[in-house]
């Protein structure tokens, strides 16, 4: 049979492209606040993977633990239980030197600007450049161009008290970016900004992600910038409720839409279906489903290809070959009959599987489905 994983299809863990190294890997992460009787769990065995160059937006109501998770990833809090790998370093039990070194590879953008009133915009940004030992000439050029880019070209040598709130926030953003961090952690970076400069900031983020392979994790409620997210993580009550790769989800939805039964569904419903699918893997030659067995999963081929075989007494006859984007296993779910064919993986393949119950629930949403289905089966 196939190797069944607990990875949701929409997590984007499997793409047809090359897999980039993980910037952040969270495994079974628990976190508690308080001591003794007052000890309260804030994070409940969370898992999350963020790959190089991804822009992740974290959402969720306040108190859901997203900020706690962000501070843990940022090594600003020590890890209590579980595993947290950041830029290849385990943070659970990490010593001070490692943490200090790691922090220099990250860029932090806080909700408050936290600029030194005594330093000019340039000097505040330079505090970050100096720390990583950037050559002063290079640093000067980079700071000037960053601040200019963020619309502060004429205010480079102003002190914070002669800058507006938005301008100060942009200086703080420049400070978080100037040393070309590998990982940027941002908390509502655009909250204090107007539409235009907010857009400029996220465009800058996108460029960094694309050109420098910089990973960005951002907590935001600003839905004007949701479009830049590669992945949207939603947290509720200390647990990651959904972790959706935007690109992958749209690929799945495109595939699902091609399935005649689902062609009428709205994007929202399609996304919900996608959310319920799990990743299955199969090595070449492995049987995915066997003719005659009870069926309880619907498969979508994410990558690879399979042969469809039908038993004819002693031998098996290959009747079809299915490729990426095609699907199988639906008939047994609809008719409640045993599988009517055997499916064997031709190469290393990845499937997204939907459970019988979920599949039926989707079908039940529209009466026209069954009609259509019968039609479809009849025409086969």
């Amino acid at each position, binding site marked *: 049979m196939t190797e069944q994983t607990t990875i949701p299809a929409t997590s984007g863990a499997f793409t047809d492209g090359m897999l980039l190294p993980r910037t952040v890997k969270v495994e079974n992460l628990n976190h508690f606040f308080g001591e003794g009787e007052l000890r309260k769990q804030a994070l409940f065995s969370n898992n999350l993977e963020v790959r190089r160059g991804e822009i992740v937006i974290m959402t969720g109501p306040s108190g859901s633990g997203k*900020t706690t998770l*962000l*501070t843990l990833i*940022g090594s*600003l*809090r020590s890890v209590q239980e579980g595993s947290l790998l950041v830029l290849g370093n385990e943070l659970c039990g990490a010593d*001070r030197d490692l943490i*200090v*070194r*790691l*922090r*220099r590879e*990250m860029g*932090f953008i*806080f*909700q*408050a600007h*936290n*600029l*030194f*009133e*005594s*330093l000019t915009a*340039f*000097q505040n940004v*330079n*505090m*970050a450049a*100096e*720390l990583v030992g950037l050559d*002063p*000439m290079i*640093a*000067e050029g980079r700071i000037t161009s960053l601040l200019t880019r963020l619309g502060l070209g004429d205010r480079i040598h102003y002190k914070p008290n002669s800058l507006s709130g938005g301008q100060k926030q942009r200086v703080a953003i420049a*400070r978080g970016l100037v040393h070309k961090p590998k990982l940027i952690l941002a*908390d509502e970076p655009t909250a204090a900004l107007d539409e235009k400069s907010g857009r400029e900031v996220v465009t800058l983020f996108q460029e960094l992600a694309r050109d420098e392979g910089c990973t960005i994790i951002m*907590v935001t409620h600003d839905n004007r910038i949701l479009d830049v997210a590669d992945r949207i993580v939603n947290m509720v009550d200390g647990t990651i409720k959904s972790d959706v790769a935007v690109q992958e989800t749209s690929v799945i939805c495109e595939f699902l839409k091609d399935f005649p039964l689902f062609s009428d569904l709205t994007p929202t419903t399609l996304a919900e279906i996608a959310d319920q699918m799990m990743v299955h893997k199969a090595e070449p030659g492995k049987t995915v489903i066997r003719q005659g067995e009870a069926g309880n999963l619907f498969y979508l081929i994410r990558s690879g290809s399979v042969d469809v075989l039908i038993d004819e007494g002693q031998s098996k006859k290959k009747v079809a070959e299915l490729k990426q984007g095609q699907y199988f296993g639906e008939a047994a779910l609809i008719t409640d009959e045993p599988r009517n064919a055997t499916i064997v993986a031709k190469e290393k393949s990845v499937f997204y599987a939907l459970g019988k119950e979920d599949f039926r629930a989707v079908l039940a949403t529209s009466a026209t489905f069954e009609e259509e289905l019968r039609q479809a089966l009849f025409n086969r």
Partner: protein
Amino acid sequence: MSNRRIPLAWKNLTHDWRRLAVAIAGIAFAVLLMFTQVGFQNALFDSQVKIIDDMQGELFLISKAKYTLAAEKRFPLSRIYQARSCSGVQGAYPVFSELTTSMLRKMEGGIGNPGYPLRSIGFYLDDPIFRAPEIREQINRLRQPDTALIDRKSKAKKFAFPRNDDQLLAQQAVELTNKKVTLVGTFAMGTDFAHDGNLIMGAENFAKYFPHRKRFGDPLSVIDIGVVHVQDGFKIESVQDLLSRTLGNDVDILTRDEFRTQEINFWDKSTPIGTIFLAGKMIGFVVGMVICYQVIFSDIADHMPEFATLKAMGYPTRYFIRLILVESMLLSLLGFIPGAIASRVLYSGLSAQTGLLMTMTDHGVAFVYAATVAMCVASGMLAVRKLLSADPASLF
């Protein structure tokens, strides 16, 4: 400008000039307090040994029982003769001094006040005792009977005589130990904590005023200080050695430095004065520390989110410790300069007022500056704990 590291300590310190001014004023005040204590202490000690500094000679004989100059312990004249006979001694000369019975009063309308005690110093007028040329120039005036020179730095309130006009001074009706004395001139020596003024006179006059120095016999046969001149070509130490072997064990033979040190040690160690000044200096130190702590602490408290951000960025603990260290050093320097200037002004004012020798010695300046740095650094290191508690996790 971008070639240098950002001087964050300096920038933070000078950003709010009002706060800086208050800080500087506070630290300067502490510096002034300490300088006052050091000044008074030095003044006490230097004034106390001024008579030693004013005398010629390389070695001094005093009674073993004389624990301080103000103690009226004497040794017999024979020791002077013995000293004169030692090889390497060019000359040994007696100096007589009286304090408790030496009451000087100004007669007014025949009655006058009860008088105040001052130190009367007697010596044989041909002996080379005092360095000051003004004394040597007036030696002939002292050859007259019932004459004396008065220290014009004597306390003006107690000894209200004209000090700039010798003519007028000589016309004053003055009595010393109830006998008439003519003040034929002035010299400068200065007061100290035991002596409010000084008179000098010839030995013969001295004997006349203080016949009670020795109950039976010649008042000039008991000596307060013996001044020894060492012959050229002789080592002072070897002459001192010879003298201490030759003379009886009732006298100490001291070099100039030993004499000074013994006198200063008495005031420093055997009287509460040293402790009082130490307490005074400590109060200045503590006041400065509190002010300095306050300044640095509030600077840190006002910038907690900024410091936490620096921590999040990866600035290590030692950066913050160095930052506060530099800040405290700067504060100490900024506070010390005006404090020292103010102290200098105060010193000259007090010197003029009291006649005490208030001088700013290199040693005193070094001591106060070291104390100021220690005070600022100590309070900085106390305050830095607050900074180290800055939690970057609180920023998100």
